């Protein structure tokens, strides 16, 4: 194939794939700003006429949407706190020490990445009723932390691998204790990477549907509320579209924020 032809083929393929990803996002945005009467009308114009916040307003005023949005944010905050507090030390240990059992631990962590919420949720619901955690935000946050930990550990490990140990050692020869050397030297350098881990955890928690649906009844998170409205309560189309759009927006911003770390998160092979 000649060079211009190859260039053209490349451009067309890239444009097609980008459109494939982006077009549905544009369409759900359009739908979310189309008034309800037009959503059910036929023939329907592509662009909302006029643009209207009615559909979004209807969603926000629906029963439980604002409280469950708040719940989602709280659960995500708890999950971030827990998974960084629990996972970051482990990631640091994996990056800095060579010790018996290190490989076994690393493989165990990779294995946990593969057994998600579907398997954990039902038995935990039964246990949570006994432990008084059922239908609480803490309960959901615990499950989300279990799901997020492998990612937190892997990303913190790779972040600390990027911080030269020599810097910490230099600080220690200059009179810092191990903890001080970590706090004053390694931690500041690692902070952006840790922030990326926290942000990824937010996405995971914000998006998690299955466990949140099973483990809550009145204290719904947003996905649990919407899942119930769609799966059991037969919510109207405008509610569904606005809900879909609203749940996607944070994800879009966040993928942009952590784009540098995307490859680290998933680019670790199971070997």
């Amino acid at each position, binding site marked *: 194939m000649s060079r211009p032809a190859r260039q053209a083929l*490349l451009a067309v393929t*890239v444009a097609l*794939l980008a459109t494939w*990803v*982006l077009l549905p*996002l544009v*369409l759900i945005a359009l739908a979310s700003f189309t008034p309800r009467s037009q959503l059910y*009308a036929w*023939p329907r114009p*592509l662009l909302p006429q006029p643009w209207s916040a009615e559909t979004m307003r209807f969603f926000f005023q629906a029963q439980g949407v604002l409280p469950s949005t708040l719940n989602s944010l709280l659960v995500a905050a708890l999950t971030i706190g827990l998974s960084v507090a*629990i996972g970051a*030390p*482990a990631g640091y*240990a994996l990056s800095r*020490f*060579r010790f*018996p059992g290190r490989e076994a*631990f690393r493989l165990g*962590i990779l294995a*946990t*990445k*593969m*057994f*998600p919420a*579907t398997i*954990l*949720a*039902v*038995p*935990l619901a039964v246990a949570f009723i006994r432990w008084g955690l059922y239908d609480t935000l803490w309960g959901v946050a615990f499950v989300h*932390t*279990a799901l997020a*930990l492998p990612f937190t550990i892997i990303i913190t490990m790779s972040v600390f691998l990027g911080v030269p*140990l020599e810097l910490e*050692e230099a600080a220690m020869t200059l009179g810092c204790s191990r903890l001080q050397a970590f706090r004053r030297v390694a931690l500041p350098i690692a902070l952006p990477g840790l922030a990326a881990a926290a942000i990824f955890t937010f996405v995971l928690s914000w*998006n998690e*549907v*299955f466990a949140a*649906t099973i483990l809550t009844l009145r204290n719904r998170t947003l*996905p649990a509320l*919407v*899942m119930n409205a*769609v*799966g*059991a309560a037969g919510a109207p*189309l405008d509610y*569904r*579209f606005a809900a*879909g759009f609203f*749940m*996607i927006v944070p*994800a879009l911003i966040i*993928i942009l924020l952590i*784009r540098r770390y*995307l*490859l680290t998160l*998933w*680019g670790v*092979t*199971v070997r």
Partner: protein
Amino acid sequence: MTVAERRLERPGLPLVRLRIDWLPYLLLLPTLIFLSAFFVYPMLQALALSVRGPDGALTWRYFQAMVGDTYFSGAIRNSLLLTAIVIPLQVAIALTIALLVNSRFRGHTTFLYVAAIPLGISDLAAGLVWLSIFTERGYLNMLLQGLHLVPRPLTFLTFERPLLLYGAIVATEVWRATAIVMLILVAGLQLIPRDFFETAEVFGATGWRKLRYVTLPLLRPVLQTALIIRTILAFQLFATVITLAGRIVPVLAGEAYFQYTIYRNPHVASAYAVLIMGTSMAVTVLYLRLLRTREEEVARA
């Protein structure tokens, strides 16, 4: 061992041997305690719930109830069929994107981010996005009507048109979950030293031959990982299907959900969870076996 395999082995981590002490274990302890309580325990509990009756004795009745359920055979069939249709499509698209990104054309980083966007979108939200396209008065019908292909809106999402219903689910899943495969493959491609490709070019390999004899064999371990993770995730498929098809297309994870939320039966729901767990493990072993033999064949060839 082929040259390729030797080159792919990661060099040892740049660790300085500190005194082996209690510190690393202390740092791992919180993770171990937490995962025991919220990961290992529920897995064992799922097993226990599915095989132990109210008196604590072993019983098969919950598995029998699961197998005897109206939706069971459909759920098995749909879960397997959807996995078998979706994953090859995802691997093909992901590989295309990964190869494009790896060719480092101008703007390839932006393209990578765009392709990664669905990673941040939940199965539920993705289902709702595509509902706006496939619903009777949705964007697909608007397009078909605009092109004068249909006289009036078609109903895609109905049990009367199982093929279209399947198509809608497949499109949504391919849209949503190709990004994970793509990222794993891009990261894997970056591990392959660029001089491999250059050498191949020096020896006259181009296009397909380079892909077939250099890139794909070197990518095999990473492809294996991507397949394992993606297949296991495919058995979790649930919210996408419910938003688009309700219970017309039952799937395994969806049945676990319905058993728990509608019938309030944690035992049968756990039986489904155990079935999903078992299938995931079986698939992992299968991939490890299949891809290993093929690797040996390539080494011989």
